[in-house]
């Protein structure tokens, strides 16, 4: 059964495992000719990714996330992994001075970035603002308490987290193998290839409002992209990006269309990319200050 959920293809000098998860095409590139090993590693990555998706997706009705989001002001029981993710989200909230907020997902009911001109009314946005504010959330190792009108959304970190978890599993099982985990452009390379050559990875790059493919070379570490050229609203000539400011309820202005960042870990790269978008016009100078490699597209 499970072998039907992913595929394995042998290439020249590596093997590719493919599956779909988290609404993204997922690829595992393995520097080996051993099909059994490749099959096993892909299977590990697949089940780990599905496990994370099942647990944290806010589109499912009877998982941990639903339990938290429908807790009606009561403490909801959490486990150790959730606690670590909440602590990480808490660090991101502080580092971004409140701009990265995993309670801001409620704004999505007002903002639908479908390329149309459907700008929500200020009353609609205002009504949602009381449900936003990470500082109002209380949590400890055992439980989390949200106010009644609040919701959590790990959408901003979930896929990158899954990439890192899958990479960690592959490293553990095959410590001497170079493996690329690529979930729709969020990438982690477990270690350099034997010949020290970079992996060539095709990622979607937004150009002139249409997606093209660009080849990126990566030796080791993580890579992530934030921003999406196809998700925006356009009204009276003004372009509204899909990056929302949790303090105002409105899109951040003058932010790049997309930012790609290289960092030791995928989730770290993803957060740096997202935090830079939240800087709006100052995205590039923020990225320069971090002393990292990045690609910014406006």
């Amino acid at each position, binding site marked *: 059964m499970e072998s039907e959920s992913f595929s394995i293809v042998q290439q020249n000098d590596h093997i590719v495992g493919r599956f779909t998860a988290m609404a993204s095409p997922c690829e595992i590139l393995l520097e080996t000719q051993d099909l059994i090993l490749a099959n096993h590693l892909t299977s590990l990555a697949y089940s780990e990714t599905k496990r994370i998706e099942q647990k944290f997706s806010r589109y499912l009705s009877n998982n941990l996330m639903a339990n938290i989001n429908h807790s009606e002001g009561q403490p909801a029981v959490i486990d150790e992994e959730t606690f670590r993710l909440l*602590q990480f989200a808490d660090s991101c909230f502080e580092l971004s001075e409140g701009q990265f907020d995993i309670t801001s997902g409620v704004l999505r009911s007002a903002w639908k970035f479908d390329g149309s001109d459907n700008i929500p009314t200020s009353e609609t946005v205002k009504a949602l603002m009381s449900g936003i504010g990470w500082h109002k*959330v209380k949590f*400890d190792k055992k439980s989390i308490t949200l106010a009644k009108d609040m919701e959590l959304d790990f959408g901003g970190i979930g896929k990158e987290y899954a990439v890192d978890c899958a990479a*960690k599993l592959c490293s553990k099982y095959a*410590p001497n193998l170079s493996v690329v985990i690529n979930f729709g452009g969020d990438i982690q390379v477990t270690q350099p290839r034997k010949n020290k050559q970079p992996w060539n990875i095709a990622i979607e790059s937004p150009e002139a409002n249409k997606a093209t493919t660009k080849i990126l070379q990566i030796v*080791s570490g993580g890579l992530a992209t934030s921003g999406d050229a196809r998700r925006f609203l356009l009204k009276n000539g003004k372009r509204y990006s899909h990056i929302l400011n949790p303090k105002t309820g409105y899109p951040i202005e003058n932010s790049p269309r997309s930012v790609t960042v290289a*960092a030791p*870990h995928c989730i770290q790269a993803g957060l740096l990319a997202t935090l830079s978008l939240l800087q709006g016009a100052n995205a590039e100078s923020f990225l320069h200050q*971090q002393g990292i490699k990045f690609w910014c597209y406006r």
Partner: protein
Amino acid sequence: MQLTSQSNLTKQTKKITNVNSALAAATCALLGSASVVQAEESVWEMDTALLYYGETDRVTAVEGVFSAKKDFGDEHVFSGKLVLDTLTGASATGAVSQPNAQTFTRPSGKGQYEINGGDVPLDDTFKDTRLQLEAQWTQPLWDDMRGSAGVHFSKEYDYLSVAVNGSLARDFNQKNTTISAGVSLAFDTIDPEGGRPVAFSEMVVNQGQFANDQAYQVAFDATRQKDSDDKNTIDLMFGVTQVINRRMLMQFNYGYSTSDGYHTDPFKVLSIVNDQGVTQSLVHEDRPTERTRHSFYWQTKYALDSGVADISYRYATDDWDINSHTIDSRLRFNISDNTYIQPHFRYYQQGAAEFYQPFLMEGSMLPTFASADYRLGEMTAYTVGLKYGMKMPSGNEWAFRLEYYQQDPKNAGFDEPGVLQQLDLYPSVKAVIAQISYSF
């Protein structure tokens, strides 16, 4: 414990410019792993420590340590260390207690000191400052090998030690097995205050029998050799480290050490007693000029869910007939993510050197070598202690250590004539060790 966000949105906090390093730390906490990619620019890791060691009524030592380490990339690592310590207080001379007061000449020949009846003869002029410098360079060599080379320099008022070392290590079996071999060569020079005593020469004590100071000095000088002496040591070490499973690591070492030269302690004497146990004279000790030692060491580290257990055993044997067993155990408990406590227990037991004598009998033939230094006698010793460490939000770490140490010398089967039976010839040595360290 209830955690809530620390941020206050109405308060404009200081702009955090380098978000990346804080984010890297948060990422490692989330993923429970170290970064898989080497940092672009590594920083110097510094350690400082201040240690106090105080024996009851005897030696007090204060030691400051500063060490620094830097990875210059691709596992090319430099480490350096500077140690400065001062020792003051009294140390055992080797002479036995007597029911009556005893008078001793200071090792320099200048002056005397008196020990009350029943008291352990201690020389209270013990005072020294030691400076130690170390530098070590480690880097990968050829395929799968690491090489390391270092120098060591240590200087006291009357002692100089210079050493060089080199070692090679190779990983096997997907880095689960490491074997290593090392060599160290040390060259020591000793030039004690007042000269080195002539073996078994009698301590000259001025009790008015000399016509003048000059006559005393001539008698004292006759017991001394003026020039310095030296000692060369070769150490060889072979080790195997094996990862047993995800939680357990085991290490075996064999060490061979051979030294040639001056091993005698110029400040130690032996009492010559009569069959009533009364001291007739004091003679300077003498030790063999060679010593060869073998040591076997086993260590296991086990990672617990919230800490680390570390236990080791060492057996050492040498051609002076000193056989010793050491059991050392540390158990680290993580109290929280940033704090830990670590109880420590160590037990040590050794047999006496073949030439160890607590005293010599009057009228019997002088042995080839003899020393009454309690450190060469039979003894047990134990250490109990506790360490508390805390990591600051900045990543720097404070640690506090408090330990109690006790040495219990034992009679290695010597009969005690007359008055010696009433006296404590093997007094325990008790010490307190306190240390504060800071890593940044």
